[in-house]
């Protein structure tokens, strides 16, 4: 499935990146913790395997800042689960963070390329 050569170890999340990725996953619509981790694994072509030990604290931090909100709902296959959704503040934060990341990636790329 993957076109990229597999690294012996999976990518670690840089500080603060998981939060942005969670926001991104919720931009598509409300989701529960399992759904978020599935989404991130699939969208990253299995590069990111989300550790639940990081996912839950990250969700709590986002709740604290008021960027996401949570609600208990019944999932399509009949299980009760806690669904997270973006708040307007979260949507704004996603925009800010996305543009910051893109600048960061570009800059990193330029510097690394000039060295190579």
């Amino acid at each position, binding site marked *: 499935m993957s076109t990229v050569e597999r690294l012996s170890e999976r990518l670690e999340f840089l500080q603060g990146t998981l939060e942005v990725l969670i926001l991104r996953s919720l931009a598509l619509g409300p989701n*529960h913790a*399992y759904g978020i981790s599935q989404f991130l694994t699939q969208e990253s072509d299995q590069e990111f395997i989300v*550790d*639940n030990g990081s996912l839950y*604290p990250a*969700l709590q931090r986002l*709740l*604290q800042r008021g960027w996401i909100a949570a609600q208990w709902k019944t999932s399509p296959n009949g299980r009760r*689960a*806690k669904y997270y959704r973006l708040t307007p503040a979260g949507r704004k934060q996603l925009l800010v963070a996305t543009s910051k990341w893109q600048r960061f990636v570009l800059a990193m790329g330029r510097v690394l390329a000039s060295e190579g």
Partner: protein
Amino acid sequence: MRAWWAKLTALFSRHRLDDELSAEVEAHLQMVVDANLDRGMTPDEAWQAARRGFGNRTLIRESAREVWIFHGIETLLQDVRYARRSLAKSPGFAAVTLLSLTLGIGANTTIFSLMNALMIRPLPGVDQPDGLVRLTNGSFSYPMFEALQSRRLFTHTVAFMQRRIPAEVNGTTQWTHTELASGDYYSALGVHAMIGRTLSSNDERTRAPVAVLSHAFWTRALSADPGVLGRIIHINQQDLRVVGVTPPEFAGIVVGFPTDITVPVTLASSLLTEVGSDILTNRDDYWIELMGRLPPGRSLTQIDAQLQVAWPQVLAVSAADRNRSTLLAEGTRLLPAGNGFSRLRRTYASPLYVLMGLVGLVLLIGCANVANLLLARGAARQREFAIRLAIGAGRGRVIRQLLTESLVMATLGAAGGALLASAGARLVVGLISVDQAPVLLDLRADWRVLLFSIGVTTVTALLFGLAPARRAVRVDVASSLKAHTRVVSGLGIRLRGGLMIAQVALSMLLAVGAGLFINSLRQILAVDAGFDPTSVLLVRASVTEAGYRGRRTIQFYTELLDRLNSRPTIQAAALSLYPPVSRGAYSSDNISIDGVEPRTDQGHLALRNFVSSRYFETIGQKVVRGRTFTELDRHGAPNVAVINETLAHAFFGSDSPVGRKFDPRGGRQFDWEIVGVVQDATYTSLKDQPKPVVYVPCAQGADVFAFLQGRDMFLEVRSAAVGSFLAGEVRETIAQLDARVLVETEALQTYVAGSLAQDRLLALLSGCLGAISLLLVAIGLYGVMAYSVSQRTSEIGIRMALGARPAAVLSMVFREGFLLVLAGVIIGAALALASSRVVASLLFGITPRDMGAFAGAAGVLALAALFATLLPARRAARVDPLVALRNE
């Protein structure tokens, strides 16, 4: 506000957050299992794979929860940093605030740590002090103790008494607090010896001449000699073998007077000079206190009920028949004794409660002051708050920030207050140390003091911080940001005016209290004592403890008087059993006079003092009729007595009693002759009404009253010489007679003043607190008036432009301040009248409605208000209409 609330509830409802997280995690796990099943795994495989991949669920829950806790601490630190910065930006505000809070909290902590040390703190070094109880109403006889002990109501029944007596250790004699205790004493307290052993029941039974030393005494008198066991110390010429030393934390059970030496109670007759040899069987001698340890699992109430049943039986076998009905009627009761015994408590409990109330008022005034300043500051910071609210800060968040600022200030105030309190409490202990033995109270802060100051600090911060904080966020964001000038809110001004009135009212209450106590002290000092204490030295010499008994005691004193009276520097020296103001101690008995019956309600009862010749001359008590004693009124000569005016009046009206015969023992043997009448003098306390008194020459009294032969007498020496020189001379004279006699000297004036310690304490402290509150009120009033003037600059400018003269503006500002103060004074006076009952019992010679105190308080407040208003009023009068209007 919601986010803040969520965090707060998260902190307090750990369990709810935990439940929710675990439900979420379980649901999550279930979904992974479902997915595995879809991929065709068996249910077992599906579960195992899911669990393996999921990670440690407990750890996940915990790390998710920690996010909330750390967040709370982090924002708190952020708030504290911000508070520090914003305080540093306005040093004037910070200084006044800190001063108000330091004084307020410091005064409260001072009084509380005194109350703690004297009344609350459980005895240190004692095992389970709350199991200790004592029997009420003074002292008991040794037979009563034995009868009670045999009833076995307590696990341990203890008899003890503490006495200040000289002990000879290492060749030097020094004053000690010696406790005579029954054998169960240390078992009841659960105190074990650090070296050797403590007292045992065997010691009590066999009257073993042994002594247990306290750690402090062992260190002080024996330089912590490790070979102390077996050493001999002497009390009253008796050898006592040291058998143990108690641990350092234990200081006896008498609060304020740590015990140095403990000996078996059964040694009383050989160690105490004033008791008879039958003290252990005498049913009329009440000299010990009783204490017990409650049996495990039994409450004070349960044992008290048993005591009520047992007490008549105890008295049936232990009380003399003629006293039994009185003792039965008096009864006894159990009280908790875990906080020890204290004679200071009786004298100082009610003054301390009153002072606690007064310092509470000072703190309230301080709070009002700070709240007022905060309101003014809040008005100045309105734009800041508006901006913070506009960029999305919740109102709750701003309130929290402001309350954190308050808490930071209160905490700084508390730190200053703690320093103030440690100095203040020591000062107060100095004020109440009036006996020869200094009061040693353990004033170290313990968890109670700590808890108290944390509590006071928090309440203080909320008191002064909450109202201004709530007002601060009630801004209309749009208009405050638009307006160029500050928006003056009428509500703020009204609130500040209200606070000011409350402050003045509280201060009035305090000032009236201070005025009452000061006036009361002045009344006492104005009392004509009936003698002249200036240039008189009071001397106590431990003659009986040095081994003098019977007639030898009298001989020793006579020889001493002869030598002193022959010294050129000494005008007169005399002896008396009781000093002129005896602080309660006085013996009294019925007297009967040949052919006369008393004409007053006092009946036959009269106080008795035994004095030498020249006594009245020495202390300056005037003779009204007849003569006083001479050297000729000695052993063997016809018995004579002098009476005071009150007694003369009670029996003889305006007739002369000189030459009449009477019986000083109340019987019918009229073999004493009244030879003179002296002026009334104060006897037990300056506050007492004059009482009938009989003076008997001690040389003759010793024949009739055997107890006089075993008692130390007070020596009074009148001389123009300086106190310390005179004291040296007296010491030298006594040392020439017998070097073993310990001597204590004190100016009679100081001694008399010592009996007023309670009144002085109240007058001085309430005066200080009154002054502090005046200072705070003046600062507060200045702040309010200055703010009001600055807010009204343009209005004043317009008035002046329209022709108002500076004098008119001046009086306008004064009127404003005056009205605030007037309202406060009236409310404060009403409060003072309403609470006058509380202090009535502590006053002498005036009622709690004393006009002088009220008028003085109002006057002083008015004066303070005048000064506080002066500067703002002058600034208002100097407003330049042009400048003021240009700003508009």
